[in-house]
């Protein structure tokens, strides 16, 4: 399948933005949706809809089967050992909140330490901040180097006998830097410290194998993986999920409810309180099918080609300053232009149909460190081409004209 064929799967690319073809370079923020996902949601609502896991009527059986089949697909997609290790959440953010609350409640006490890095997205800091306040725990930030890369030595330095968890991004949403996860997880497991991986940016670009990687928790954002909004996945090792208390209380997650006492269901049901996103879960199976049909190897090969092409062009252009220079990176090009604020860049690019993001990208710790309040970010998805980069660079040149620089 070539890129044009892949693009044809995404109806939004038929749309014109400000009378120009859409050049979508904001997939790290949220990816566009293939027709198969959109159609699957409609089909589900029109033909199969019912709540899942409760009633015994025919529709409920069908809906429950489709829902649980997606869990099996996800298990295979990330090579988890057990299907009970796959929990559906409302997003990667909820996945991290779940672990910070539930794991934190049981295993983290006063004076215990949580290790994060300076690269983390707010969603992998704020939930731990709540826990810090609640339990009087300590958060330590592993320093990044001048290329804005995570250093295993910096993490090693912070580990003490009080370290209870390391929570770390797989790929930075600002620099695109790929974390040397395997080494970090091996180091942590040698000291029996569990690792949570924020895979929000990792899952769309890298083939996942939970058993090989060996992390304890991994969170995925489905809307960044060409799937529906409002859906995420939390992978957790069974040994933790079996022991962790529920996160939210409600229908569906109980074993038995008495006036004096309540017992809870087992994982994953224990962590899926209330009515779940049914159409979203069912339709997410189509995202996985599309990714597997194209092949993640082929997806990352194409994305890396486009990325390298973009970085080469930017390096040759004296007016564009690259933010971060990690050796091993994927998908993301963050940049600034002298004399033009990123918001102005984003508005001017939009006039040419080019969608990027400008701002602090929910990484204020990182932006403070590099002394910038905002950066512009172009991020590459499976549908992007080198031509998109050419249009981006031309639009950046236009910014200079508008600002008379």
């Amino acid at each position: 399948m070539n890129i044009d064929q892949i693009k044809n799967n995404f109806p939004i690319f038929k749309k014109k933005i400000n009378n120009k073809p859409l050049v979508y370079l904001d997939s790290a923020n949220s990816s566009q949706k293939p027709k198969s996902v959109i159609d699957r949601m409609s089909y589900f609502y029109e033909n199969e809809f019912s709540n899942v896991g409760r009633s015994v009527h025919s529709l409920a059986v069908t809906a429950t089967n489709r829902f649980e089949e997606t869990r099996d697909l996800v298990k295979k997609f990330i090579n988890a050992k057990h299907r009970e290790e796959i929990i559906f959440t409302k997003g990667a953010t909820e996945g991290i909140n779940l672990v910070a609350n539930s794991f934190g409640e049981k295993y983290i006490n006063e004076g215990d330490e949580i290790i994060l890095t300076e690269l983390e997205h707010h969603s992998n800091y704020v939930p731990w901040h709540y826990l810090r306040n609640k339990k009087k725990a300590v958060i330590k930030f592993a320093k990044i180097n001048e290329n804005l890369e995570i250093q295993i030595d910096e993490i090693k330095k912070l580990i003490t006998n009080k370290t209870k968890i390391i929570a770390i991004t797989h790929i930075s949403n600002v620099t695109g830097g790929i974390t040397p996860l395997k080494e970090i997880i091996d180091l942590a497991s040698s000291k029996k410290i569990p690792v949570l991986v924020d895979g929000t940016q990792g899952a769309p670009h890298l083939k996942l194998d939970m058993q090989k990687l060996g992390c304890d928790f991994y969170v995925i954002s489905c809307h960044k993986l060409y799937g529906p909004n409002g859906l995420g996945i939390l992978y957790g090792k069974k040994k933790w999920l079996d022991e962790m208390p529920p996160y939210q209380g409600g229908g569906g997650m109980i074993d038995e409810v008495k006036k004096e006492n309540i017992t809870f269901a087992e994982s994953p049901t224990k962590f899926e309180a209330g009515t779940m996103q049914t159409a979203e879960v069912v339709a997410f199976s189509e995202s996985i099918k599309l990714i597997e049909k194209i092949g993640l190897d082929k997806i990352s090969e194409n994305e890396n080609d486009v990325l390298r092409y973009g970085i080469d062009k930017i390096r040759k252009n004296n007016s564009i300053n690259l933010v971060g220079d990690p050796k091993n990176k994927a998908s993301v090009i963050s940049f600034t232009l002298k004399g033009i604020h990123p918001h102005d860049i984003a508005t001017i690019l939009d006039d040419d149909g080019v969608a990027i993001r400008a701002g602090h990208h929910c990484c204020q710790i990182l932006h403070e460190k590099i002394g910038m309040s905002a950066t512009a970010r172009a991020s590459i998805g499976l549908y992007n081409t080198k031509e998109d980069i050419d249009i981006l660079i031309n639009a950046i040149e236009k910014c200079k004209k508008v600002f008379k620089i």
Partner: protein
Amino acid sequence: MELKELYQEIILDHGKNPRNFGKCKDFTSDAKGHNPLCGDKVHIYAQLDKNKKILDLSFEGEGCAISLASASILTDILKGKDFNLAKAITDNFLNLIKENKSITLNSLNEDQKTTLMSLSGVKDFPMRVKCATMAWHTLSSVLEKK
């Protein structure tokens, strides 16, 4: 949507060379504005007399051309104005941006009206309206401070 309506000469000029930038001497009141979604910041300093007449006015901040230009224009136009007039100009400006009303105050000269009007291009860019209004909302806090 016209880019040249948004990035008019006056705005580019104020954005690149903001007037009254820094802390004014002997300021008596100040307030900070912040847009948590994009990280734009403004800090306005005013020297007010006992009747809240604005004797001196300045700002510090970081942000896009629109937010810097808006703060710069604000300080230029409101410096020397008394409390009621400053409030009236602020209201008139916010109505211009939010409800597309024209600048009607007789106490402003044509140059000042044109300058304020230059910021009205944001109305076609809804995501940028806050960039133009943040400094003006912050000024209201400066004036309301006891």
